[in-house]
């Protein structure tokens, strides 16, 4: 076990991936000398060269579009999108090529590429630097979407994602980059697409992911003080969702709250609630609630605290599901 930040864990994970497979390449804006604006690729160009750690011209469609071609040639490109709000110029390549080329070619082309997106808010940034675009990708058949919430997950999930033969949208909770955690560099504990129960509880199941896992755990601690026991599930994989883990929990607690930063309208939480209310119809003792960002564009960061799901808002929802008469 080694303590490191998520940023460092990702950096180490990428380094291992570059070491393990000469076909692994990194592409992105400012990922070379600068090491990326978050320093996730710090030192990698120096050690692996400009041909493997590629400073890209300023165009996201170009980054993903050339990564597609590199994947066709048998490479394993890892794209860095500098911030969540800058992935949209690449949306066409992602939806029309990345997600579909394997099927179109009846499996002849392997789209073994990873698109890393530092996502979510809470860092006091300006517009377009705090978005949560995961729903767009989760809705797109042909893609997989994952999000680590701890340094250990970051270290392992990035390596597993790079090794995987499917295209993976890798959402990194940027507000957690600098939090430290223990990393077990000897072996990974969970499968890439497994949901994980982060805290056992009896009364309410909280399903969440990425930046909000930490918030939910703090809420659970606070709730425990009031005698309410929250089970916190880190979804980790947003597409596919690991419903069996969530169902087992819900069958126990009978109450569900889903938490994420994206607005709730047509979102990951919509899918979780829809699917679980179908699968656990008998077990549900109260309507499932969602604690999410509001359905507005991400606001100026001076008011992001009020926009984002907070411990208070989660506890408020806990009160509501606990108080529901059923």
């Amino acid at each position, binding site marked *: 076990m080694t303590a490191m930040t998520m940023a460092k864990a990702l950096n180490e994970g990428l380094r291992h991936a570059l070491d393990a497979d000469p076909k692994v390449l990194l592409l992105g804006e400012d990922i070379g000398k600068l090491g990326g604006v978050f320093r996730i690729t710090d030192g990698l160009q120096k050690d692996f060269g400009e041909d493997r750690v590629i400073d890209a011209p300023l165009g996201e469609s*170009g980054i993903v*579009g050339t990564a*597609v*071609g590199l994947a*066709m040639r*048998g490479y394993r490109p890892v794209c860095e999108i500098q911030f969540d709000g800058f992935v949209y110029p690449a949306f066409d390549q992602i939806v029309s090529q990345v997600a579909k080329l394997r*099927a179109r070619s009846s499996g002849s082309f392997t789209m*073994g590429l990873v698109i890393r997106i530092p996502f979510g808010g809470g860092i006091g940034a300006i517009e377009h630097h705090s978005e949560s675009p995961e729903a767009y990708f989760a809705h797109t058949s042909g893609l997989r979407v994952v999000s680590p919430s701890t340094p250990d997950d970051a270290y392992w999930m990035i390596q597993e994602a790079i090794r995987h033969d*499917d295209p993976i949208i890798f959402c990194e909770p940027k507000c957690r980059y600098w939090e430290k955690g223990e990393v077990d560099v000897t072996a990974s504990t969970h499968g890439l697409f497994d949901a994980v129960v982060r805290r056992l509880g009896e009364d309410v199941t909280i399903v969440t992911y990425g930046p909000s896992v930490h918030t939910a755990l703090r809420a659970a601690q606070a709730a425990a003080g009031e005698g309410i026991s929250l089970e916190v599930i880190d979804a980790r994989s947003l597409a596919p969702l690991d419903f069996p883990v969530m169902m087992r929990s819900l069958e126990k607690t009978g109450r569900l709250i889903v938490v994420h930063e994206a607005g709730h309208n047509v979102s990951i939480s919509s899918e979780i609630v829809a699917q679980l209310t179908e699968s656990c119809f008998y077990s549900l003792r109260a309507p499932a609630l969602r604690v999410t960002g509001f359905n507005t564009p991400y606001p100026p960061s001076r008011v992001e605290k009020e926009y984002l799901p907070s411990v208070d808002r989660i506890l408020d929802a806990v009160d509501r599901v606990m108080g529901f008469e059923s």
Partner: protein
Amino acid sequence: MLEEQLVQLLSPEGERVTHAQYPTTLNTDEIIALYRDMVIVRRLCNESTSLQRQGQLALWAPLQGQEAAQIGAGRALRTRDFSFPSYREHGVAWCRGISPAEILRLFRQVSHGGWDPQKYRHSVPTIVIGNQALNAVGYAMGVQRDGADEATMVFFGDGATSQGDVNEAFVWAAAFNAPVVFFVQNNQWAISEPTVRQSRIPLYRRAEGFGFPGIRVDGNDVLAVYEVASAALQLAREGGGPTLIEAYTYRMGAHTTSDDPTRYRFDADVEAWKHRDPIERVKAYLVRTQHITAAALTAINEEADVLAMELREAVLAMDGPDPLSIFDHVYADQHPLIDAGRQEMIDLGLGGVR
């Protein structure tokens, strides 16, 4: 005036023209082979149009008028090169060794692809205009990293030059000096829109602005296309970087079988271009120079007819797919939504080829 800008080795009347930069490297047999290719792909194209009219294909995108551009470029490619088509490059696919029936799988909609792109080193068609230009540059960057003696060629139309992706592809190709040849078939129409709606200057000049060479070739002159494409591919293989080739040609038919070109262009223009028919041109040359016999001409036509009949039979026999196959290649690995969907379809009794 037009001709002045164009690299041309055969005049529309089939006279040999010399060009300082591009001597012909082809012998008579090779020219006849190009002629044969062109006759065959046109014949197969016509057969496909009639198959579509008879309800056997969902759609057809005819290549008529563009045979010289496609065969010239397609034959300039070496086996180990890799090529990226749009949706109209049936002639290039033919050169890559893909069978006509495989080409029609997409148009019969039993598949979105139709052939194994790795086997033929020719990617599956790209329908979203311009996407493949960036994919090709990426592929070429891979070739470059492999240190391989290969070139990548990507095909798109005049309309595609307006897409952001195609222009980003120019940026990337220039920035990385990628071994890629951009081959624009300027057939003068993007469905109903004339090329002037996309650009007020000739398209080959776009490359200058990105810092790499652009060249305009008479796209109805198979000899010229072959030489220009060969030179650009060789330049790419040798580390000379990208080239943009504009093959100036004409879409003699409709955009696709769904299109009605009488709504937007004059018959007279179409008639005028018949005098520049790419097949007639090389035939005139071969006949005038007595490089080909009447018997050989007939034999080629007959061969084309046979291939057309074989194609028809293959298409009519083309079954399926099994609806369950839609789940087969979405992911490389197990996926719960795929498993559930497959099971649901089985439970609904929707699987199986009918």
